[in-house]
């Protein structure tokens, strides 16, 4: 009975959503006649004055940089909530409860791959304003590097203090750059650095700085998420 009700509800929802999106249309300009969409302005301003090659980066970090600040806060909070939900008293903290027995091929392979992965992650977030990728992608890649090490080595551990220091410093850099812009230009997150020449590494003003901070922050946060979940002991009945 409940299933029927759910199916009926979902059919209604699906019908209206589908009709709506077929109305909007796919693959052609869909804006109503007479409006000038902001994306045209974004694309124009991305080339100058911002001199950023990747339009998505310029939107994420500059035009809508406030969203990104909120977004890293969401991740920061997710780590906090995770720690709070899975919190155990000091005497309960034991060894890692979950590990996957790894062969020597995996362990030595991980050791070889780990620096390469970290390097790739750093490359992705440093070049975020030039090529696809950026702070989030680079941070996630770094976190997967740590994940690989955590899976390969039973005793591999990441210092909790170091993680939270990196996280805090990166977050303060982001908000601090924003406040510097506030002092310099009168608005939060305003660009106060020379923008350079397009397609150069040193271009885009504060965008690379913010994206590097985001990369460190996301990397530290996601490593923290994995670390917390890995150290959770499930079998006890408390």
């Amino acid at each position: 009975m409940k299933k029927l009700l759910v199916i009926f509800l979902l059919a209604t929802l699906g019908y209206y959503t589908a009709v709506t999106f077929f109305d909007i249309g796919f693959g052609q300009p869909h804006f109503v006649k007479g409006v000038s969409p902001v994306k045209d302005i974004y694309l124009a301003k991305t080339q100058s004055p911002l001199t950023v090659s990747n339009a998505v980066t310029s939107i994420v970090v500059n035009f809508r940089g406030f969203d990104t600040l909120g977004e890293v806060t969401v991740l920061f909070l997710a780590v906090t909530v995770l720690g709070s939900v899975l919190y155990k008293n000091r005497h309960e903290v034991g060894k890692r409860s979950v590990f996957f027995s790894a062969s020597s091929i995996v362990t030595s392979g991980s050791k070889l791959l780990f620096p390469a992965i970290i390097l790739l992650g750093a490359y992705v977030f440093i070049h975020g304003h030039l090529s696809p990728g950026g702070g989030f992608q680079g941070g996630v890649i770094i976190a997967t590097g740590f994940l690989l090490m955590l899976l390969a080595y039973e005793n591999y551990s990441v210092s909790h203090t170091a993680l939270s220091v990196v996280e805090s410093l990166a977050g303060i850099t982001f908000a601090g750059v924003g406040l510097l812009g506030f002092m310099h230009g009168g608005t939060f997150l305003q660009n106060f650095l020379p923008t350079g020449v397009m397609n150069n590494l040193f271009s885009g003003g504060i965008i690379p700085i913010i994206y590097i901070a985001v990369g460190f922050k996301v990397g530290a946060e996601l490593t923290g998420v994995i670390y917390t979940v890995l150290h959770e002991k499930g079998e006890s009945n408390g």
Partner: protein
Amino acid sequence: MDSTYFHFLDYAVYGTAVLVMLIGFYGAMVKKSLLKIVIGLSVIDSGLNLLIVAIGYYKGGTAPIFSPGFLEHFKSVSKMVDPVPQALVLTAIVIGFGVTAVALALVIRLYRHHGTLNIDEIKNLKW
């Protein structure tokens, strides 16, 4: 390339995305296992993100990146797909991951207390 194929594909992108969302909703609302509910929620997210990116796509468009030589070749930005939905999806994916992680942590804690993931046996609170 026949244009009717593309016409079919138009419907297919939205159709697939909406269908995946509905399947996720079904899983989240009907299934009894807490983990299944979380899986359903992440399936909903997948469909939703595809839907949003598809809105920004223009036929024959290029990625919104001014690689060297782009402007010499194309002369204008009208060939670029809409970057705004992509930026929004980027945010939405990261937020979705945060929520999924929190939900899974709650699942682990519920299992710690109750020794089961079946919602029929966990329900101490009235719905």
